[in-house]
């Protein structure tokens, strides 16, 4: 009979228990959760595409988008994915100091991204684009706002990991919880890869000013 030991992400001090699937249930649950998130973000992206180019009043995407600025934000988020896997490498080597350092760097890069998004939203608002200005404003803020909330949750998870590590509440082999948080973090990154292309880089119909 195929039974596996499930490491419970440290929540029970690295306690192991058997699973019937032969896979750690925490990791399986994370992948199923991420699969369900595809449907959530798919709905938001589809709604944006459905209503793109149909706003009757401005501001339009071409009036407000600052591609160089958003490109830097994209690079920052991409870099955070690299620092996340570096944290995992350190955790696998049981190098706690480097693991904490990489986790903090990832959180810092995430904060930079979210800070950039807050600045962007503020700038757009001052240019006259609010949630209720037009269909572009509504679909844009909801889509990118939901993504920003996900990044913020990811930052909290990263900081929690660092805090738990500092309080010595992570198991000696912290690779598993780091990998779980990493899966979520990389998912947030791949969602941005799609958003950056669909929302920012693909020119929008007749209302675009490039």
């Amino acid at each position: 009979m195929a039974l596996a030991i499930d490491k419970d992400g440290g929540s029970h001090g690295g306690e192991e228990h058997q699973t019937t699937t032969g896979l750690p249930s925490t990791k399986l649950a994370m992948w199923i959760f991420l699969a369900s998130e595809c449907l959530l973000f798919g709905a938001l992206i589809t709604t944006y595409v459905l209503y793109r180019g149909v706003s009757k009043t401005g501001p339009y995407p071409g009036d407000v988008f600052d591609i160089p600025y958003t490109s830097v934000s994209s690079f920052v988020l991409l870099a955070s994915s690299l620092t996340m896997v570096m944290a995992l490498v350190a955790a696998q080597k049981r190098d706690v100091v480097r693991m904490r350092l990489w986790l903090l760097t990832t959180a810092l890069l995430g904060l930079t991204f979210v800070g950039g998004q807050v600045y962007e939203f503020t700038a757009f608002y001052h240019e006259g684009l609010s949630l209720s200005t037009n269909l572009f404003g509504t679909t844009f803020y909801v889509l990118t706002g939901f993504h920003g909330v996900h990044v913020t949750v990811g930052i909290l998870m990263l900081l929690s990991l660092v805090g738990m590590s500092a309080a010595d509440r992570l198991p000696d082999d912290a690779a598993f919880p780091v990998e779980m948080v990493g899966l979520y973090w990389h998912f947030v990154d791949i969602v941005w890869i799609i958003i950056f292309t669909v929302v920012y880089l693909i020119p929008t119909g007749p209302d675009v000013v490039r």
Partner: protein
Amino acid sequence: MADTESRFQEELGAEDLADPREALAPHREHPSAKEYIRIGVILAVLTALEVASYYVDVNTSVLIPTLFGLALVKFVLVVLWFMHLRFDDRRYARFFVMGLALAATLYLIVLISFRAFLV
């Protein structure tokens, strides 16, 4: 109960593990730090290409497939290497691809129904 369990395992393709702890270990060895950095550099180059293509004056019928192609390569690289789907048990990939395929099919039907195209 035991029968249900074994049927569940069969459906999921669970292998009979000699040592249950094997399930915790990656199916194949996870990449090294150097390999991660190499993937990171490739991702940065692809992003730079995406941004550069925005400023090139080309027809949208060429630009849009190019941008989608670059985004797809980046997506696959992150999922396979950084999220380890290339190295872990295939059942994780099955669950994720199921959700992804469901979302893609559903929303493609919606977009086609409403004749909402990107070009």
